[in-house]
């Protein structure tokens, strides 16, 4: 791997194992790469780093939870690292950026290829104090066998790994296995027993992973005093009309349809439709699929 910085595309650096900048944590890997490619910055070794990983096809609840944890942690100067995948990974990066924190995406392929394409917006935003990292050369396509390798870097660069939603035999559990190997703390967000997307997380908890009940507790483990992020908008519910309030109070992070809202509020269908549209226009409700609504967090 002899690569000169001059040959690299603009904005991408190659950092050799011996360089001062090379993350010390990487050396813990028995198969530590000779160097890594970076677009943007590398994680600040003085700061704590948390990896947030999970399913690509996650639920709306999972996405909101990942974003919430990332936002709260980033607001307390914790760096968020993940894999820039769809679903949980993307939500975690997004959350960290919302709080104005630093976030790092470790790619399986070259850092010049945004994979998946759907996250191009995130990819372009992750510059400055944030960055994109990969051990593969530029132009390397993200092929399947590279993904477990990438997971080991996510794990080794972090101080704590948080799994948000994972099915049984999910790729996120590979990251958790690496974390165990690297001696990192592992936390998992619990879920209902019958929730397919939480089976992996619950299994981790059974095996002894920490129960991530709130960002505050995770911060405590990291030895940080919690400082509430001011980005988290608290809506004043008393500006709402009665119907809107009734509908809003029935909403949660689990998507609900018009029928359910109707049943819970005992309002007429038209009243519910009006209220939900007004809430949406106020930005308090998000429509995640046709006529499926969650609380905007």
């Amino acid at each position, binding site marked *: 791997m002899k690569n000169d910085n001059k040959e690299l595309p603009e904005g991408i650096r190659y950092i050799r194992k011996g360089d001062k900048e090379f993350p010390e944590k990487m050396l813990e890997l028995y198969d530590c790469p000779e160097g890594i490619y970076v677009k943007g910055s590398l994680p600040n070794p003085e700061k704590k780093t948390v990896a947030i990983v999970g399913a690509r096809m996650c639920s709306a609840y999972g996405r909101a939870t990942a974003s919430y944890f990332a936002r709260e942690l980033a607001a307390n100067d914790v760096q968020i690292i993940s894999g820039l995948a769809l679903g949980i990974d993307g939500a975690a990066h997004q959350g960290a950026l919302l709080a104005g924190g630093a976030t790092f995406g470790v790619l399986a392929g070259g850092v010049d290829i945004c994979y998946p394409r759907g996250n191009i917006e995130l990819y372009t935003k992750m510059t400055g104090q944030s960055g994109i990292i990969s051990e593969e050369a530029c132009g390397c396509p993200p092929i399947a066998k590279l993904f477990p390798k990438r997971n080991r870097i996510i794990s080794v660069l972090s101080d704590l790994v948080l799994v948000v939603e994972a099915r049984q035999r999910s790729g996120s559990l590979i990251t958790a296995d690496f974390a165990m190997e690297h001696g990192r703390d592992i936390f998992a967000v619990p879920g209902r027993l019958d929730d*397919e997307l939480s089976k992996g997380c619950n299994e981790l908890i059974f095996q002894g992973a920490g129960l991530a009940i709130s960002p505050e507790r995770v911060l405590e483990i990291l030895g940080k005093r919690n400082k509430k992020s001011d980005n988290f908008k608290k809506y004043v519910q008393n500006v709402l009309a009665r119907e809107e309030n009734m509908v809003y109070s029935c909403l949660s992070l689990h998507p609900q*349809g018009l029928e359910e809202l109707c049943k819970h509020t005992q309002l007429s269908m038209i009243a519910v439709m009006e209220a939900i549209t007004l809430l949406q226009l106020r930005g308090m409700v998000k429509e995640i699929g046709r006529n499926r609504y969650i609380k905007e967090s």
Partner: protein
Amino acid sequence: MFSSILSADVRGITGVPILVETDISDGLPGLTMVGYLTSAVKESADRVRTALKNTGIPMPPKKITINLSPADTKKEGTGFDLAIAVSMMCSLGIFPQEWVEKILFLGELGLDGTIKKIRGVLPMVELARTQGCKVCFLPKENLMEGQIVEGICCIGVGTLRETMNRIIQRDYKENQTEDQLEETIEEEQPDFVQIRGQESVKQAAKLAAAGRLNLLMIGPPGSGKTMIARRIPTILPPMTREESLEVTKIYSVCGLLSKEGKLMTDRPFRAPHHTISVSAMVGGGRKPMPGEISLSNHGCMFLDEITEVPRNVLESLRQPLEDKVVQISRVSGNDIFPANTMLVAAMNPCKCGYYPDMNKCHCNARDIYRYLNKISMPFIDRMDLCVEAPRIAFEELTGTELGQTSAQIREEVISAHQMQLERYQGSGYRFNSDVKGADMEEYFRVGKTQKKILEDAFERLNLTARSYHKILKVARTAADLAGSQEIETSHILQAICYRNVDRKFWAV
């Protein structure tokens, strides 16, 4: 001796006059037929000759020439047989030409002289009336259909002999159709009251019927999308006489009228299978025939599983949905079929059908993308209303609460139609769905508060200009249903709730 008899053919769904000319003269015995004929028409010579012989009229050993005029348009079908036979009889001197002036003859002949039913009688009889005919001979089986046209005497004949006798006796009395006792079998008719829950979908169906808007239902398997679609005809108002005539003509051309051939009064409901071809959908063939979209003219077409419908078929629907007519071009000319339908489409949200229920859905992001990519955005854009049909909870299925009956909903729809007809009087439009371009500003005017909401929605929900106009259309329809002259906030909010989907909804 020369004779000429009026017959007719169908182009598109209108009749065109065809003159059958026969000349019998001395010369080498034989029969020639000319006039750009297809083989079905050419074979008519043998049918007519044999039928005449079996009626007791022998062919003289003379030179017989038959011409179908105008001689430059292609003639198809078997409907000219009777006219050719009558023309021959006239040329043979059985009755004078004056006796058969201004009379239209339609029908296919059997070898024994029986007259068999043909397609497209209604538009042809209508043509005869506009040509100033007073009498029309047609097959007995098509009599009811012919009688739909007022102001012309239709005579249903069973055999060639009967036809001949009637002409000779100059007996041009309309024969009475026996009013058959209608046996209505009392079976449970589909009705909206049978559907439990699904209030939001029912409301959307009501709006669609009221404004003749296109409706898209998205939902998991078994949520009742098909059940609701099948009940939409029960809430459509009855057709006006002009609408009935147009619909009956289309069915007449396709040979799809019921045995009695009565005027169709119920709005058509078509539900073609998703393996349908382009020609079956929009019409086609060498001699173009109407397709499903024309067969559902003034009615409703239900397309289940639209993601499975071949892409080219969906694309072919785009233009008719916009223009409300289908134009089919062939070398021989253009045919225009009406296609003023209301489209109801249903689809699953993903391949397995359960997204966004992550406990059941096992699709990955690419599966979903690929699934939705089967429908093009321009097609989705033509849907005015979009609603989710959720899975029904058990309590709702077994609950005792009953919704509105179809009859009740229909009343509301009829009064909404009435409001629209009054509003659009003299403008060329009839329903909210017809209003186009600059006229929207005039007919869909909103107040200041409503405008503010629309502006908010435009920004926050990333609406496009097209979806903005659709919202106005739906809001206007909601106002019509409520009997309100003005579009109120509530109507706008409802419309926004039913707005069209875009790709982002599935962004995973």
